[in-house]
């Protein structure tokens, strides 16, 4: 079956512009996660969604970052007034459910470059 997909695969934007990153999770997966990975670094947790419950936003680095998940499926991560330090690969992952024992399936990521 289809895996997690993300779009666009690459995004170059000017400092100060807003960007939207999209994630399509695996069908039937109720949990969805966003991570940020800077060059040569590990993953940084941003936010997770579980079904229609309120998301855990505690990892979002500033109020310029927001995310939503419509209909319990597709998710969009929005970064407003982008800064150069926002440049990174943004990874989305989904899992069958929210829980410590569930493996996460990652998408290919969106490489964001802020110039």
């Amino acid at each position: 079956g289809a895996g997690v997909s993300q779009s666009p695969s690459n995004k170059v934007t000017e400092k100060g512009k807003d960007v939207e990153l999209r994630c399509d999770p695996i069908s039937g997966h109720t949990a969805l996660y966003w991570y940020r990975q800077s060059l040569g670094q590990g993953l940084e947790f941003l936010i997770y969604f579980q079904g229609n419950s309120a998301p855990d936003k505690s990892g979002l680095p500033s109020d310029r970052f927001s995310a939503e998940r419509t209909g319990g499926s597709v998710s969009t991560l929005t970064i407003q007034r982008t800064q150069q330090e926002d440049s990174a690969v943004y990874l989305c992952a989904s899992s069958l459910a929210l829980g410590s024992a569930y493996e996460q399936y990652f998408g290919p990521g969106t490489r964001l470059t802020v110039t």
Partner: protein
Amino acid sequence: QQPVQSPQAVILREGEDAVINCSSSKALYSVHWYRQKHGEAPVFLMILLKGGEQKGHEKISASFNEKKQQSSLYLTASQLSYSGTYFCGTEGNSNYQLIWGAGTKLIIKP
């Protein structure tokens, strides 16, 4: 706090063994291991839960010492396909948030 992975990098000949360690300063509920090849998404290897439950691929083995807040990933008879960067993600207090280590880069040479 980010878990500490060691070594940062290791170079092996095909067929050799390796151990990758992940250590946290906080009590852990679970440890997750993933492998990421250059330019690709991370791929699941293993989950180790407090209490001893494990879930993962048959050819991968790992340990979780709850008291020491440490986990180790054991790669035996390494193959060229094992090359990549290995990340551990740690979860404290069953809050479903994974805090990731900086990664261990593994290079396998023929």
